[in-house]
């Protein structure tokens, strides 16, 4: 069927004028893929599916959402009330909003697994450095997008989360305050901030799509890595269609089952995906006693929080991202996959544990014990990048296979 359509005279007519059909052949059909990709390689296409879900649900939410802090008769705001209207009055509004909120959490979950895969199998190494850089860029982009989106319901955690995070800008020496007021459009988070964050929450995903498209096209230049980290010979590669189109669709189906279970049975994700405090309308005069970001931002937030100095805390958080960017150049071992790198495998495992501990502590109230644990985990996080350039010196790698 597909073959028939692509070989038709109509396709030929289009291809002569736009090259569309040869793009489809190159990227989705003939694209050579190693035959040994395991389930860790499913998360890229699952992430694409989530991006599609977010764009569709987001567009429909925007039809009924009002980015206005104007007080309403019941003492709330137009923004808060319009979200309640979506939940109660708009047909299936509750489903669309829950899907949007749950998919946001899943997006990060899937992207983090996608990164774990890349770190474990050495997919950030030559010639895929640029692919890795774009990936980290996509992560930062996503974090900006959820940050803008999180303000929109204009609840307590919306307001105070935006207040705390925008204040980070104010710590930049000399231009900090000027920039802070530029971003907020006022001295504090208020009506102008909400209005522009709504625009950014719409604009940035469009830009994200461009970067994601570029990420995929760059992948198709350097080709997929595989669990062995060895370049496959021609006889060990298989065309993308039908082998990986079908396998990726299977991965997306498994994801959709879990996703739907959350959307229909636990839409707030046990308070992790939608925070209880955010069902209270924003009150600029009172900070909730327990304010922490949503789970997917907590590791970086914890690094910021454990440093007992405002500017240094922010420098630490920025540096945590810089380290990720530098990864392809910090790791100097010629062997890619952790399967054949016993030492790297262990330090990487400790690094993953440190990120999980940071994430857990970042979700707890500030007490001396959590500060102490968080600080230790932050030290482990940075130590990983410090020892990474030296691992290959004392590591005896296992013999690599000839082919995949």
């Amino acid at each position, binding site marked *: 069927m597909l073959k028939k359509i692509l070989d038709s005279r109509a396709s030929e007519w289009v291809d002569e004028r736009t090259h569309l059909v040869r793009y489809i052949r190159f990227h989705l059909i003939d694209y050579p893929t190693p035959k040994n990709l395991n389930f860790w390689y499913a998360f890229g296409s699952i992430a694409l599916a989530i991006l599609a879900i977010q764009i569709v649900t987001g567009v429909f939410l925007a039809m009924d959402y009002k980015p206005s802090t104007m007080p309403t008769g019941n003492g709330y705001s137009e923004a808060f009330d319009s979200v309640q209207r979506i939940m109660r009055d708009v047909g299936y509004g509750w489903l669309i909003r829950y899907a949007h909120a749950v998919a946001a959490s899943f997006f990060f979950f899937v992207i983090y697994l996608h990164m774990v895969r890349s770190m474990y199998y050495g997919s950030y190494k030559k010639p895929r450095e640029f692919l890795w850089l774009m990936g980290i860029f996509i992560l930062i982009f996503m974090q900006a997008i959820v940050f803008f989106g999180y303000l929109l319901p204009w609840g307590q955690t919306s307001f105070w989360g935006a*207040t*705390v995070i925008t204040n980070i800008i104010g710590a930049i020496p000399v231009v900090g305050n000027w920039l802070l007021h530029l971003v907020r*459009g006022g001295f504090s988070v*208020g009506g102008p901030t909400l209005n522009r964050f709504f625009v950014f929450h719409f604009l940035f995903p469009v830009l994200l799509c461009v970067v994601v498209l570029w990420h995929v096209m760059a992948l198709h230049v350097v080709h997929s890595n595989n669990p062995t980290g060895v370049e496959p010979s021609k006889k060990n590669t298989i065309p993308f269609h039908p082998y990986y189109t079908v396998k990726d669709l299977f991965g997306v189906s498994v994801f959709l089952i879990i996703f739907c279970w959350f959307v229909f049975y636990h839409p707030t994700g046990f308070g992790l995906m939608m925070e209880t405090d955010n069902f209270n309308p924003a009150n*600029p*005069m009172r*900070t909730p006693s327990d304010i922490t970001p949503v789970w997917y931002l907590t590791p970086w937030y914890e690094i910021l929080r454990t440093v007992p100095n*405002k500017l240094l805390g922010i420098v630490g958080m920025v540096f945590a991202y810089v380290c990720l960017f530098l990864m392809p150049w910090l790791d100097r071992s010629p062997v890619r996959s952790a399967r054949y790198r016993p030492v790297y495998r262990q330090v990487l495992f400790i690094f993953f544990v440190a990120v999980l501990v940071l994430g857990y502590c970042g979700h707890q109230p500030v007490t001396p014990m959590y500060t102490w644990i968080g600080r230790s985990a932050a030290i482990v996080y940075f130590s990983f990048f410090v020892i990474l350039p030296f691992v290959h010196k004392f590591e005896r790698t296992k013999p690599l296979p000839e082919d995949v």
Partner: protein
Amino acid sequence: MEDKTRRKFLYTVASGMGAAGAAVTVVPFVRAMQPAADTLAASTTEFDFSTLTPGELKVIPWRGQPVFVLYRTPEMVKDIYGHNDLLLDPMSRAIPEVQAGWMKTDEQRITRSIKPEYLVISAVCTHLGCVPGFEPTPGQKAWGDIVPKDWPGGFHCPCHGSNYDLAGRVFKDVPAPYNLHALPYKYIKETTVLIG
């Protein structure tokens, strides 16, 4: 041989002017993102301390931002003088924002008020802008280990654990770098202040 100097000059000038023109178009867009005139318009807020009972705190809005107004009991005022060594900036001199035109005597710098019993101070934590909680009784008994053992009573920020005393002066070894900002205000009646 052909002389290319004139062409090079024209090329440099033309592209330079073009780049400068493109750069200048950024100005209206940046200005549009800055606080608008209605946001900038200064406003004032009045507050009458006789509406508070001794020891009571209220958070009131001024220019859309929260302000602490606290009626300090004589014990609270006495308490302020006891722990200068625990503070980062006990005399409020670090930056202009922690000082105000009315701060003339050392006593006013320490109590951070015109009349020691009535405190008017910004309620925005100087770390990342949360409103600190009011935890006035000394010691850990009422607050647990989120405050230090020698807690003299004061404000504790729930977001990142910064501590301030009952004059809004910041303690050492917390994330916040400065005392709570002092505000411009004056007495227009015996117990009524005009902020702004």
